[in-house]
């Protein structure tokens, strides 16, 4: 009896361990955002109180509604949607999830979009302007 329970326990632990080992990063299309924020507020928080903003946003699923400034495609075919406010050098750079690129076809600069992604940080650069970075992003059109 005890042996049976032990065996079931071990099998259960093994199954859990295997699942955990092979667990893939969350697909954000169905995930709920931890926080919703405007591009202006997100950039303001990181620019003025970077430490607090880092604790608040980094590693969290953040939803941002903003205007598309540009859509960049890298050599390898990776897409980045850049959200910006007019007059602001700083932007929100959204590195798109490679499994959900079909939703981006047809989007042009000027369009308002809802982007959901994991915040990976704030890249400050005197020469290039500072950006908040999100990755594994998915898009919902407005």
């Amino acid at each position, binding site marked *: 009896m005890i042996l049976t329970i032990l065996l079931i326990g071990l099998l259960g632990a093994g199954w859990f361990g295997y699942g*955990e*080992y*092979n*667990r*893939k*990063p*969350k697909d954000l299309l169905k995930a709920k955002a931890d926080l919703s924020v405007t591009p202006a507020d997100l950039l303001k928080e990181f620019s003025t109180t970077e430490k607090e903003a*880092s604790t608040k946003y*980094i*590693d969290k699923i953040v939803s941002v509604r903003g205007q598309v400034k540009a859509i*960049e495609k*890298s*050599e*390898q075919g*990776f897409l*980045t949607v850049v959200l910006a406010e007019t007059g602001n050098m700083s932007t929100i*750079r959204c*590195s798109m999830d490679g499994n959900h690129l079909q939703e981006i076809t047809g989007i042009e600069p000027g369009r308002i979009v809802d982007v959901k992604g994991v915040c*990976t*940080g704030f*890249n400050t*650069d005197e*020469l*290039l302007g500072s*950006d908040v*970075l999100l*990755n*594994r992003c998915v898009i919902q059109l407005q």
Partner: protein
Amino acid sequence: MQKLFSIFVLTAIVFSLHAQDKFFTKSGNITFISKGSLETIEANHKAVTCVLDTKTGNLQFSVLMKGFEFEKALMQEHFNENYVESDKFPKAEFKGVVINNAEVNYSKEGTYPVIVKGKLTLHGETKDTETNGLVIIKGGKIQATSSFNILLSDYKIDIPKIVKDNITNSVKIDVNCKLEPLKS
């Protein structure tokens, strides 16, 4: 008044020419690969910032560590929490120079082998590095590529004995960045 205007125009031209010397990207690609005896761990970064000053050969990279994407979530978590401690050390940086910059003709399309020397800062540790790479000039853009190895122990990144066969101390880094002119 005329003289002042001429000086202004001349200065503006000089500045605009100078700005054409700098090329950059914010969506550069860096992949690192660890080939252990049990498994190969690979992570990809799609948001590397790179600036190259074609006049001086000055080259800089900036990488937010949390931007590395792994196929397995547990690996990504261990990488950030235990190995590179990205909460403590959020950024990796390279500051260096193309030491044979004079041999690269940036206005002529072609592939130029380069030697890059500089300081790599990772996990709060800074080390001198020297690597070979390629600079490919095409269509007004510059593609910078390099492939080299680093030792995790050089940057005080400890690998527990228990995963010694999964993760190697020597990790391969592949850099591939397409740079565009920086317009001021």
